[in-house]
């Protein structure tokens, strides 16, 4: 029973990978010129650029929220849908989506009425792909984990499900939705900057934004502007964290099923923030009063929606959507089938050899970064765990640092390292490392902190100290979180590769051998078969590593080292 389920999952996942690759192949367009959209830099532009970035982020986030809720909701409310939708979500989350970005840029630029708009769409789409899957998982999990007594009580008091969406499903998803939104938002910054400093071939594709400002400043050797850009980015991120995410996160606790007494007392939201929002609230009230005087009757009242969304209409819509979806999948399949002969004709052994070599180099880069990251974060996490006072002092800093995307420092690093021999290689490793390390530190420290008090007291009182303590208590207890941290960190690293291995500084292309740079150069030189082959090899490598190495290992570790609650 379980074996056949696994096989079905694997089939669905491999099919969806192939479909995705086919999609890229079909929409692969040539002969599109793209421009940078950045003129000479001045300080005056900085606020404007920052706002452009923020709008990009927000629209991508809202899009993700909308998509994710529907996807998660649909997957959680039917066993049949769950069997298909969950493996697909798993794939979308684990493959390095940045690899598809060059193709996405070409696609969006070719369909949009205006090139800049197309580039905007592509950037928003990219950020969307970095945020949506994670949030969709949270929606799925929270809906399928509503306690049985709550569901039963709900069904009893509302047998027709009139208010089910607003009274049960949406509130139930809020705590995890908010938590994962914060993660996704942080992730989104990385992709925002990545999309802005991205380069395809020698043509730089740069939209006005804070990321491109930093990159451009670096390539024009305006160091003070570059630092200013990084500073503004940091300020924006920290401001949003304190003034928006912290209050929302605090509010979301109301929706949890239980709160342990000590937890509720932690004061997360600063007084300044509360005063700020109270002031805004007063202002809004004033404006609302003003609007109420005009007496606008809401067109989209609830009754209207309800009447519209009657059974029959919703049935028609549902069927229509299904038909469109199936039609689209068929379209992709037919086109892939048509393209297969030409793909096979174009395939060259040399493409595979080049891709494999590049994959090996990229893999080594990730491995080196991981070894460096682990060798400092693990001891640090243990130190912080042993010295709570130091941790209290440091933890606000290590909470904010990871939210500033490592990729923003890329131009800075490039500026200083490029003059050296192997400078680009070092820069790439540093970018990958800086994306990994905070996350690892965070999860390992979290795992250590979750060690139950009684186990610590027991080892203490039996005189288990030093290496023995490390071997018998700390390492085993941290192992599950080390694994989680590793999987996510390495996943992020594959994405970072695509940006870190190839870029343009001024009009000069800088690159190192690697799968990320191959993806870029092949599409720029219109070498379609190399692009597809390298993308295929990267996705296949990441997928099989996840599926055949990490997951089984993770399951085994979790099985043995999990703390029973």
């Amino acid at each position, binding site marked *: *029973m379980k074996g056949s389920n696994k096989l079905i999952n694997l089939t669905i996942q491999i099919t969806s990978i192939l479909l995705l690759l086919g999609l890229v192949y079909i929409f692969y367009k040539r002969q599109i010129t793209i421009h940078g959209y950045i003129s000479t830099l001045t300080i005056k532009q900085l606020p404007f650029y920052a706002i452009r970035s923020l709008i990009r982020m927000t629209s991508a986030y809202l899009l993700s929220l909308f998509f994710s809720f529907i996807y998660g909701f649909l997957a959680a409310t039917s066993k049949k849908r769950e069997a298909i939708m969950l493996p697909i979500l798993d794939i979308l989350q684990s493959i390095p989506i940045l690899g598809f970005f060059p193709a996405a840029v070409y696609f969006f630029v070719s369909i949009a009425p205006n090139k800049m708009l197309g580039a905007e769409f592509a950037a928003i789409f990219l950020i969307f792909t970095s945020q949506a899957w994670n949030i969709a998982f949270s929606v799925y999990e929270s809906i399928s984990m509503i*306690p049985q*007594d*709550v569901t*039963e*009580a*709900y*069904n*009893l*008091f*509302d*047998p*027709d499900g*009139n*208010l089910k969406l607003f*009274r*049960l499903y949406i*509130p*139930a998803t*809020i705590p995890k939705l908010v938590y994962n939104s914060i993660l996704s938002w942080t992730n989104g910054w990385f992709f925002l900057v990545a999309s802005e400093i991205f380069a395809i071939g020698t043509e730089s594709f740069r939209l006005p934004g804070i990321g491109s400002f930093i990159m451009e400043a670096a390539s024009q050797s305006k160091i003070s502007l570059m630092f200013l850009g990084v500073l503004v980015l940091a300020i924006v991120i920290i401001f949003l964290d304190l003034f928006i995410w912290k209050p929302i996160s605090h509010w979301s606790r*109301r*929706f*949890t*099923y*239980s*709160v342990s007494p000590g937890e509720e007392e932690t004061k997360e939201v600063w007084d300044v923030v509360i005063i700020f929002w109270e002031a805004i609230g007063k202002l809004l009230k004033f404006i609302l009063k003003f609007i109420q005087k005009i007496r606008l009757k809401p067109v989209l009242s609830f009754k209207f929606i309800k009447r519209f969304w009657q059974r029959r209409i919703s049935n028609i819509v549902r069927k229509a959507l299904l038909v469109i979806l199936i039609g689209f999948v068929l379209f992709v399949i037919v086109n892939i089938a048509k393209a297969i002969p030409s793909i096979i004709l174009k395939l060259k052994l040399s493409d595979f050899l080049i891709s494999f070599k590049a994959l090996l180099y990229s893999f080594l880069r990730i491995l080196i970064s991981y070894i460096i990251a682990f060798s400092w974060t693990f001891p640090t996490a243990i130190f912080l765990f042993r010295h709570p006072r130091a941790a209290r002092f440091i933890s606000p800093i290590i909470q904010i640092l990871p939210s500033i995307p490592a990729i923003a420092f890329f131009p800075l690093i490039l500026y200083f390292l490029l003059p050296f021999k192997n400078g680009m290689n070092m820069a790439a490793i540093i970018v990958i490392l800086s994306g990994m390390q905070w996350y690892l530190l965070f999860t390992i420290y979290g795992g250590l902190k979750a060690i139950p008090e009684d186990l610590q007291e027991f080892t203490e009182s039996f005189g288990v100290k030093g290496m023995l303590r490390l071997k018998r208590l700390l390492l085993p207890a941290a192992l599950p979180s080390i694994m989680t941290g590793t999987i996510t960190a390495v996943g992020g690293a594959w994405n970072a590769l695509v940006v870190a291995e190839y870029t343009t500084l001024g009009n000069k292309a800088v690159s190192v051998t690697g799968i990320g740079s191959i993806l870029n150069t092949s599409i720029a030189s219109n070498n379609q078969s190399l692009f597809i082959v390298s993308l295929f090899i990267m996705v296949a490598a990441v997928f099989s590593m996840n599926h055949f190495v990490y997951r089984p290992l993770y399951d085994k570790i979790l099985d043995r080292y999990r703390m029973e609650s």
Partner: protein
Amino acid sequence: MALLELKNIYQTFPLKDKEIVVLNNINLSVSEGEYVSLVGPSGCGKSTLLRIVAGLIKPTSGEVWFNGDKIQNVNPYTSFVFQTFGLLPWLDVTENITLGLEAKGINLKERLRKAFKYVDLVGLEGFEEAYPRELSGGMKQRVGIARALVMEPTLLLMDEPFTALDVFTAENLRGEIIKLWISGKLSLKCIFMVTHNIEEAIFLSDRIVIMSAHPGEIIGDVKIDLPRPRDRESEDFNKLYDKIYSMVISSTVINKEVKPV
């Protein structure tokens, strides 16, 4: 005429490729004015039976008749009190209590009027705007009871309503339930309660139905006509306790002896 009638209820659940019989051939009829308790060892399917009566679960076979109608979906004349309360954490006390009315489309004013009445009746004054997590277990169950009563059901179903509470709170709440039941202030015609606490069942009910486990079958039906308020120390009370206790025990012992064969 019987208010509630169960005819040949048979219920199975899948368990590791096998079907196990949870309820076997349950026939029961309950009249108006009765407080009936269902007593039995754990795993005898008494909670499942209660959910079948509510219409939350459809039996594998058999029929539930209520007031002359066959029950197909959730029975609108019943209300339910849960062992683990089943309150929605994101709604305050008033919102939790009036959820069922809101779903029916009753307007806010009427909802608040009714909520006020039942908040008063179960002793929740001053907690109208509290959230469930701010309440003690006893208070939570008061919300659970008010939420069930506000629907003005004919039949109140309670699934081990006092089990999750501490001894003192439970005793207190039992007294209040019985006072409400006797007072005639409620629309209730019948209470049907599941418990594994025999003493509680004798203290509260007019009639006790005893079930055995594996499979769940009715093995006894005892009328309790002790005068209220009931004295736990009285001889009659203890005799009834011993009688029912031995019925429950004998059913589990027999099963254990049968199993190895």
